[in-house]
């Protein structure tokens, strides 16, 4: 923290005797030698520094010590700096957070002709169907999805998903099964944008996960292997939060919450905190949360 004075002839007096108290050192500078305005700006760069300087300043606005505080930035300057910093911090927060969901550039990928001829009939038929129909024809559509993981120790890259073509229509209950390492989880993680595909695209209700995840995610629910809940929120609090995020109108909110509670027999536990629920009840609650006002739900389990 700085207090700059015009009365000092020397450049720097560290630990000025009058200010050596409470473990604090106020440093006096001459504005003839130091870029005073820069230092004033730095002085309030910490929220706590700004607050203490601000409080100090207003104690002397109309009091006898006013002349002694002439070196502290005026009240309006401190207010402007605090407001400016709050805006800068908020914008920085938003952009740091948003970088994970910026639109991706989708790249085309086609498998070799000889590999194409080796496809099973049903796989080839699914491929043709998915590639010829529009994105909006399916609730979830993978088109030529490819995901490579970098090779370790000089080994070639591992192709976890190779030209996956799959379409799941609305109302369909689909189980994606396969041997270990087949690429099931990788494909699902690409839907959630936890992983970015090297090529191909994923669409949910016609919205691309790569280029328009904000719209695509409005139709997506994911139940992971872990029960992701707030321990200190009750079942009804959880249901209300998810219903509001999903866009359920306020007039219908309580009806939806009650409907969820009744159908999944959560009645006796409605006001119980999630942290106090049994493992099975937590699982039920998580599944319910991800089914509110939803078109497509991924339930991932090993």
């Amino acid at each position, binding site marked *: *923290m700085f207090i700059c004075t015009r009365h000092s002839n020397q450049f720097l007096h*560290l630990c000025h005797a009058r200010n050596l*108290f*409470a473990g604090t050192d106020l*440093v006096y500078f001459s504005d*003839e030698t*130091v*870029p005073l305005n820069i230092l004033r700006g730095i002085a309030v*760069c*910490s*929220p*706590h*520094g700004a*607050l*203490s300087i*601000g*409080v100090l300043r*207003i*104690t*002397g*606005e109309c*009091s*006898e*010590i006013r002349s002694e505080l002439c070196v502290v930035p005026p009240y309006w300057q*401190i*207010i402007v700096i*605090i*407001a400016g*910093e*709050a805006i800068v*911090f908020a914008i920085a*927060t*938003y952009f*740091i*957070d948003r970088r994970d*969901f910026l639109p991706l550039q989708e790249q085309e990928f086609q498998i070799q002709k000889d590999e194409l001829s080796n496809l099973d009939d*049903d796989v080839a038929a699914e491929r043709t169907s998915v590639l010829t129909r529009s994105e909006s024809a399916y609730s979830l559509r993978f088109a030529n999805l490819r995901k490579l993981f970098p090779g370790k120790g000089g080994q070639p890259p591992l192709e976890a998903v190779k030209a996956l073509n799959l379409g799941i229509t609305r109302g*369909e209950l689909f189980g994606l099964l396969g041997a270990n390492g087949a690429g099931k989880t990788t494909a699902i993680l690409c839907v959630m944008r936890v992983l970015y595909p090297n090529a191909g695209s994923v669409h949910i209700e016609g919205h691309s996960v790569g280029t328009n995840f904000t719209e695509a*995610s409005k139709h997506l629910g*994911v139940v*992971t292997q872990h029960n*992701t809940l707030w321990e*200190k*929120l009750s079942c009804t*609090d959880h249901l*209300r939060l*998810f219903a*509001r*995020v999903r*866009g*359920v*109108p*306020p007039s*219908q909110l309580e009806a939806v919450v009650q409907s969820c509670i009744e*159908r999944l027999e959560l009645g006796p536990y409605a006001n119980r*905190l999630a942290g106090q629920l049994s493992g099975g009840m937590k699982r039920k609650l998580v599944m*319910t949360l*991800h089914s509110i*006002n939803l*078109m497509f739900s991924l339930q991932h389990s090993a």
Partner: protein
Amino acid sequence: MSISSLEEVFLSTGGDRELPESADLGGETKQSDDEAMNFGDDFDRVVTIQKQVNGLWLRRMALARNDIFRAIAFTSFPLVVGLIGILLNVFGMLGTPGDLQSNIVMSLIIAAGYLPVVSLVSDGIVFERTSKLRNILTIIGLEPRSYWIGTFLGEYTLLAIPGLLLYIIALICAYVPPPVEESRNDYLTSMVEGGKLLWLLLLSTAQLICFCSMLSFFFSSPRLAIATMPFFSIVLAFLPVILVAMFWYGFGPLGEYLMKLYR
């Protein structure tokens, strides 16, 4: 059972898609299955920022209500410490009441009251990120700006309470005769005049929450955030002093020359 026979099972299962829509599925229609899982699917699917922000704000209020001890600590610490700072000055325990020295210490004590707050604000944000709750919310369609606005409003609602109460206390102290003889309270009337203290505390609270939100990305665990944030705030407040001192004493004549160049 071999892998190949499992494959046969999978392929046979895939044939279910060929079933007509009206097919009887174990005594229940496909429609009823959908109804059983997709609650509220018949509603107007308009997702607005206002709805999402409202949901997140109410979530913060519910968390405060259900974890009342933490919420009390969160809101009372700045209030109690600020109150102590003001009373110490009023009763002349920091020196002559209203003197520059006393006012500096009082202002530092008031600011120190907000030190634990940065830990608690960061803790909540880092916890949601590391426990994947934040990811889950994003995946179900929560827009990033809704998340941050909702989180900000939730924290701000709670932190505005101590700011408001502190202002009321300062207001009372300003218009009550000073308890110490021959002392003045013009510094208190100066603080509350035109609501200066209130505006300052409310704006500082906003700055503090935004500051915590930005720094939350640097922490990999909530405990680390709790332990580090107050120290980080203190270091940031004194860092300019340290840097300039290092520059001046470290560079010696070169530093002086550079300053001359600047002039």
